[in-house]
């Protein structure tokens, strides 16, 4: 096996996953409707609520524009929720025997989960960018937006996609039923979204919650993306890493943390998934 044969297998399997996605009318509708629901309904209504608190001097966001604050978080949480479904295709493939056909082929075990992680990350990125476009249309503040800001946002989205797709593809190789998978998915998605800096600034969290949020890559990703995308004069509040008393991190440091996290999680997940796909 040469590197070109591996990459051909990888591209072919990734392409298969993406065809499933863009050929499905339902998926395309979801891609468009989901951001509208999140930003149009939740984002705009939450802003009213936050403004009420704000007028009493309660919530200091370091920005007067909660919709913009939330939009950046929603873009990343969209990447998260899309990635959480990545393992479903493993469960389907197993159920319909396709997985065994792959396992009997010379494809290296790691290539099978890797193709699903890559496809899921592409989906997550496209979906997140669709939310971004909708957010801009609905009033995300773009005065201070530069190419640098968009690049940081894109990098954060891709890294979040890789991290969570890997975890859930690995889970998919261990779970044999749809129901178990869906239960686990809904059980984990909410805490992962709320125990992070996606919705609210973490420095307002109680200490234990902040400590937990500091373990979530979404916290660092949304922090970096916000600092890079929103008006630089609205400095994002410090979040640092409370457990080790690390002070506020720069954009580059935030991204580095997310990148290292993604690399470690991917390596462990692929190792686990590859093992699960070996003969028993």
């Amino acid at each position: 096996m040469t590197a070109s044969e591996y990459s051909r297998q990888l591209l072919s399997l990734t392409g298969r996953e993406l065809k499933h996605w863009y050929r499905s009318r339902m998926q395309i509708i979801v891609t468009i409707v989901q951001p509208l629901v999140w930003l149009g309904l939740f984002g705009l209504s939450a802003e009213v609520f936050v403004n009420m608190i704000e007028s009493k001097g309660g919530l200091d966001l370091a920005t007067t524009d909660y919709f913009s604050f939330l939009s950046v978080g929603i873009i990343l949480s969209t990447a998260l929720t899309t990635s959480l479904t990545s393992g479903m295709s493993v469960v389907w493939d197993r159920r319909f025997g396709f997985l065994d056909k792959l396992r009997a082929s010379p494809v290296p075990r790691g290539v099978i989960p890797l193709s699903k992680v890559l496809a899921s990350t592409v989906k997550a990125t496209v979906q997140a960018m669709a939310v971004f476009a909708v957010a801009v249309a609905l009033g995300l503040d773009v005065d201070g937006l530069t190419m640098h800001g968009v690049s940081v946002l894109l990098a954060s989205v891709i890294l979040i996609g890789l991290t969570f797709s890997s975890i859930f593809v690995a889970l998919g190789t261990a779970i044999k039923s749809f129901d178990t998978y869906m239960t686990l998915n809904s059980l984990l998605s909410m805490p992962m979204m709320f125990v992070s800096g996606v919705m609210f600034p973490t420095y307002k969290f109680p200490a234990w919650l902040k400590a937990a949020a500091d373990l979530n890559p979404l916290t660092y990703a949304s922090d970096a993306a916000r600092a890079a995308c929103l008006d630089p004069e609205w400095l994002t509040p410090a979040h640092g890493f409370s457990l080790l008393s690390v002070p506020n991190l720069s954009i580059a440091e935030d991204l580095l943390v997310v990148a290292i996290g993604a690399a470690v999680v991917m390596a462990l997940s692929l190792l686990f998934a590859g093992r699960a796909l070996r003969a028993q």
Partner: protein
Amino acid sequence: MSGMIEARGLVKEYAGGVRAVDGVDFSVAEGEIFGFLGPNGAGKSTTISMITTLSTPTSGSVFVDGIDVARDPGAVRKVIGLVPQDLTSDDDLSGRENMLLQADLYGVPRREAKERADELLEMIQLHDAADRLVDTYSGGMRKRLEVIEGLIHRPKVLFLDEPTLGLDVQTRKIIWDHILDMRREHGMTVFLTTHYLEEADFLCDRIAIIDGGRIKIVGTPDELKTSLGGDKVYIETEGVDDICDALSRLSGVRSASRDGRTYKIDTEDGDRTIRDVLSAAADNDWHVVNASLNHPSLTEVFLEYTGKNVRDQMGDSSKEEVRRQNLQSRRRQK
């Protein structure tokens, strides 16, 4: 290692101590078509899983093309092709895309892959439907596609698990003709399980009958039939004294017995015995009103060694088919 597939003392024990395969030995020569027959749950698919690297034997060993499956499964996967029992083609891809995906996985050069895909799709008459999504295919079309997917990389050994279940006679013949061609041109070895005993009879060079995880008998179809005691000739006479003695003296005849006016003759070669009987009848003025010959069929062999009726088994397997089709339609509603 002389054979293309060598299985030695193969055992697969599942949790709870159930032995799906319980000490199986066999050897398949290069270019041979080897049939695995047995009732449902006899251990056929489990055996295929172990040879095709999908499942690890509890004990025993298998070699494919001289490669130890336990030691180097990756090398084994390059020389084998698997056509599973289930319909596993991807619904959301076209037939051609499914073929080219397989070609990508096995590293078949692209230009060649396209040519072979065209050729194979044409052969099983899926050419017109090649660019439609598999989702729109009928069960028979899916099964045909499934079979050619296993052929696109021209494997040295092809494993076919119930390849023709649910196919019409014409399609079965087309598929078998092609597999015989592949064997002739590329010396492909074929390992198959089937419920169609006539199919196994005319296709297989050798057959193993497996039941309860053990091989009951292995041999050529003729050897298996002979093992049941060979041919039987029946004659019916009118107004003749007992001729049992005379009949049993004919060459090749093992025994002759009488039931009223009907004689039953056990013989090695029924065709020859029936000629001998008729010429003896002419010589001795026996008035024979009826003569018939019975070659034992593979069905009788199957019954003898498994104690189970193939027809019952077919009933079971169509239930399996229904279950599978339900799954497929659930998938389509997704």
